[in-house]
C-alpha cells in the first residue's frame, strides 16, 4: 500500500517525476532525422554522411583505375589489375 496523493486520490505529481535509480527522459523528444539516420547500416548509404561521399569517390577512382589497367600499351601488355578487369 502506498500512501501518497496519487495512489489515494489520483492526483498528478506536483513535480517532474524522476526515478532516482533508473533515470529516464522526462519528455519525448521530437524525431531527429540525423539521429535516426545516423545509426546502423543506414548510415553507410546516408548522403549526409561524409563517409558516403568518400566511399563514392574511392569507388569511382578505383573503378577507373581498374578500367585503365586493361589498356594495352604497344606490343607489350602491361597487366596491372586493380579492381575489376
Amino acid at each position: 500500500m502506498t500512501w501518497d496523493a496519487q495512489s489515494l486520490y489520483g492526483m498528478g505529481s506536483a513535480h517532474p517525476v524522476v526515478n532516482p535509480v533508473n533515470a529516464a527522459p522526462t519528455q519525448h523528444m521530437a524525431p531527429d532525422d540525423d539521429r535516426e539516420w545516423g545509426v546502423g547500416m543506414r548510415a553507410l548509404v546516408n548522403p549526409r554522411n561524409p563517409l558516403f561521399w568518400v566511399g563514392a569517390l574511392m569507388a569511382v577512382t578505383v573503378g577507373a583505375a581498374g578500367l585503365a589497367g586493361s589498356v594495352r600499351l604497344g606490343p607489350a601488355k602491361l597487366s596491372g589489375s586493380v579492381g575489376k578487369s
Partner: protein
Amino acid sequence: MAPTGLTPGQIQGISAPGVTINPPLFYAATRRMRFNQVTTQAFAGLGSTDPVTLRQTGIVSSLEVRVSGTLTTTVADVTAMSARWPYGLAKRFKLSANGQSNLIDARGLTVKCHELATNPECSDRGITKFAGAVAQTQGTLAMASENWGTSPGGNQLGPRHTPGAVGVFTFDLTYVIPVAADPVSLVGAVFAQTTGTNLTLEIEWETEVNLLTIGGATTAWAVNYEVSSIAYSIPQVNGQFVVPDVTTFHQLSEFRRAGLTAGDNEILLPGVGVGRKLLRIYGQVTDTIGGVLSVPIPLTAATYGGFAWRYGGNDTPEQWANGQTMRYTQERLTGSDIGSPVWAMWLYDFASENALRDVVDEGQTSDLRLVVNLVAAPAAGAVQVAQETLFLAPAGA
C-alpha cells in the same frame, strides 16, 4: 508514479533543501505531537475576529478549537435562540498556510459536519440535545461531551429553542479544523517546519443579533477559546529529512448563494480547475421563517424535488430522486443522520468509499455545477455550499 524518493527542493512553495518525500519511512520514524497553540483566552467579542498565528513545527495535520463560556440572561423575559446557535457562534474558520489563503474558509457548522462525515469513530447517535423545542437524539452533530448551553436549573439552549427561564447558561463546544484531507496518510497536511512557513487561523465570531433574539432581556457573554495542534515531527533518516506526501493542499471553502427558485437550481461551483480533485460537497438551504434566521429546510421528499451534479453541456453522472433519498444515502455513508431536521445538511461524498475511484477530476469536468431542486421557493432563502478539494500545491487556491 508515486513521488516516493523525490527530493523536490521545494515543498508547498517553501524552499526545503534536503527534504525527501517518503511516506513509509516517515511513518516509521515520526512522532505524533499535540500541543497548545493558544491556551484559554477570552475572545475578541461577538462580530469580531481572533487571528491566531500558529507555531512553525513539523507536519500539521489538524487543529482542535475549543470554545467555552457562559451566556447570562438577567431579565425574566424570553430570549429565543436562532437556528445558528450553537455551532454558528464560530461564524467562520479561516486558515491560511504557506501563501495559500483560505485553505479552510467555512462555517463552524460545516466544520462539524465534515468531522462526522470523515471520522468513522465520531458518532452523534443517541446524544440528546434540544432543537426547535424538541429533544433530538439523532443528527445533532454533537459529541456527548459537548454542552450547547445548560443552566443550573436544567434549562437548555439549542437552535430555535427557547429556554424556559433566564439564568447563566454554560456551554462548551469543540471543532476540528481539517488541515489534512486524510489524517491517516497525511495527504494535504501542511509542511510547517521552516521559518518561511506562515500558518494563520482566524476565528470570526457571529454577531449577537444572528445568534438570538433578545426579548427585552439583557445578556452578558463570557467566551473563551483555545487552539491545539496535532502535528508530526520531521525525522532525519540517513542524513535526509523525510516527509509524507505534502505535494498537495486540502481545501474546505464555502460560499452562499441567494435567489433560489422552485424547481431546478443550478449552482455553478467556483474555482474549478485542472489539478484539483473534488472530495465532497456540503450544503444546506436555509430560510428566514417566522423571523428566525437560517432555519434549515427539512430534507424530505416534500421539500426537495431532487439532487444531482452536472458538468459540460448536460452530463449528469448522479442524481437523487428527492430529499429523502439523499438523506438515506448520506446516512449510509457517514453513519450519522446529518439530514435530520436539526441541521438538514446534505452531502455529496466522493471520497469516503473509494476516493481513487470516485473523486471528481475537475480538470475533466468543465462548468461543474450542483442541481438542487426545491419544491417551493424559499421566501428569503439561500444555499450554503462548501467544496472540499485537494489540489497540487503550486496550482493556487
